[in-house]
């Protein structure tokens, strides 16, 4: 065996697979080919970005969070308030929202460093609940239970207005999604990314080979929060309002399910999961609008009883192996 094998093996993990190209192409093509569905596609893409951000902390770093909506929500409100109170430029608003979400993520990351899974669950749940309460009580700022209405966005890059058909919105969302995906991809294939998996698999050993576990958790949590914040900002900017439900437990539970459906730990699970979830949602809601939650719950129970690996593995349809 030669060193060449080792080099080749290492390179192979990071190389672009054919289906990654296909997926990106499909995303881009969808904007061109499905103009009538831009609004739905926009929702899917936002949900996908949200789920991919969760994958970083759940699939890669192994942190179970029931409150990821905290960052989604803060991004949403930050973007909405910025547009309303400061300036309506979407890109500047996005930058501000991402920065705020990242700051919140960095602060909250301290909370998940110690303790058991239950402690982490509680703490993440607690943060999201606190933000919900805050948004509810500070109704002079956030509109409280009525939500923050009348957010009018300026044109993108000074040129492209957000139109009713949603095509500009979807293009915007797609670009943000793809940029985040590319950054995340760099992250997970790097030594940093592998060290996340190491600390997920065996925290004790990760420390024993000289890795600083705490710093890494802070870093990944911050990045994941920033991306979730971007998703929230996209929602606010493309829909023109923000409301309390961005902080709701339901949202945290939903994004968890989306990621689990698509598969954790290979980065694209969020996208596949979002597509399947949204389509299922629309299908089932059309049939029984009120009791979607029941079928969702049943699906969850069955999914877990049967075994997450066995039920849905879209990635194996493409012949991909976990890196």
């Amino acid at each position: 065996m030669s060193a060449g094998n080792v080099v080749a093996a290492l390179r192979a993990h990071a190389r672009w697979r054919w289906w990654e190209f296909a997926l990106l192409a499909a995303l881009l093509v969808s904007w061109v080919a499905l103009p009538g569905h831009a609004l739905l596609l926009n929702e899917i893409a936002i949900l996908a970005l949200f789920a991919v951000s969760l994958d970083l902390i759940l699939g890669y770093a192994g942190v179970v969070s029931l409150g990821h909506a905290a960052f989604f929500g803060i991004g949403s409100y930050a973007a909405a308030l910025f547009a309303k109170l400061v300036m309506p430029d979407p890109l500047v608003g996005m930058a501000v929202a991402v920065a705020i979400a990242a700051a919140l993520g960095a602060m909250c990351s301290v909370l998940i460093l110690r303790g058991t899974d239950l402690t982490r669950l509680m703490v993440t749940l607690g943060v999201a609940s606190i933000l919900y309460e805050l948004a509810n009580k500070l109704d002079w700022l956030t509109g409280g239970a009525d939500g923050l209405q009348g957010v009018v966005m300026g044109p993108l890059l000074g040129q492209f207005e957000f139109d009713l058909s949603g095509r500009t919105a979807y293009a915007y969302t797609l670009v943000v999604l793809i940029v985040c995906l590319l950054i995340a991809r760099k992250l997970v294939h790097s030594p940093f990314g592998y060290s996340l998996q190491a600390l997920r698999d065996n925290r004790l050993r990760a420390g024993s080979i000289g890795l600083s576990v705490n710093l890494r958790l802070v870093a990944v949590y911050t990045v994941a929060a920033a991306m979730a914040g971007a998703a929230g900002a996209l929602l606010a900017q493309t829909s023109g309002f923000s409301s309390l439900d961005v902080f709701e437990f339901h949202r945290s539970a939903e994004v968890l399910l989306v990621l689990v459906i698509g598969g954790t730990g290979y980065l694209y699970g969020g996208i596949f999961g979002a597509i399947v979830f949204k389509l299922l949602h629309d299908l089932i809601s059309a049939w029984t609008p009120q009791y979607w939650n029941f079928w969702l719950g049943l699906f969850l129970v069955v999914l877990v009883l049967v075994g997450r690996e066995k039920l849905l593995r879209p990635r194996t349809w493409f012949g991909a192996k976990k890196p």
Partner: protein
Amino acid sequence: MSSVVLETRSLLKRFGGITPTNDVTLQVHKGARHALIGPNGAGKTTLINLLTGVLEPTSGSIWLDGEEITTLAPHLRVRRGIVRTFQINQLFSELTPLQSLALAVSAQLGIGAGWWKPLGADARVAPLCEKLLAQFHLDDVMNQQVKHLAYGKRRLLEIATALACEPRVLLLDEPVAGVPEGERQEIFDIINALPADVSVLLIEHDMDLVFNFAKSVTVLVSGAVFAEGDVQAIANDPRVKAVYLGEGEAAHG
């Protein structure tokens, strides 16, 4: 006189009414081949946990190259060269041996936090990994996930991962634990081939390994140092024999 690389001074650990480490003062010299033996429950693994920082001592101090490291965080001790293996394999189950070693090597090279370039892109990583994989006969399984590996290979990876960290002081906690007789020689050979400037502290029950490998021995009983000296003296010490025979413990075979 060879210099002392690692030492403890009156190291004490007490919790919940027991004292697993009781006033232990011990020195490891540069290039040492030092064995730590003692009956079950003597506190050998606790001592390793104290040395690596996994446990905090109740009192006493630990010194590396003349600098006190008693309160230094575990991962920082690794960077200073104190590396250990675990009695029960502690591996990264979802990664492959190649990825595990590449990660350890990258951490050692100081690029363990790099986030832009892929793992292994740095030209120094692959040759080091290749050397380790060959040395530990892991080349044929280098791309299999660790969770699918046989126990013997996992044990080899356990030690390989520690060596990837380029230790100056290597703490081996029962390296052949659970390894069938026929496969032990492989591990013995690797340990014997360790570079001369690496100081090795070996916890072992297998007396063959102790007498073939160690030059000096510390005997730990009930958390305290019971006897100490070169390997021949300890082998012939009647008190040591009594401690072992009195325990009724056969050496782990």
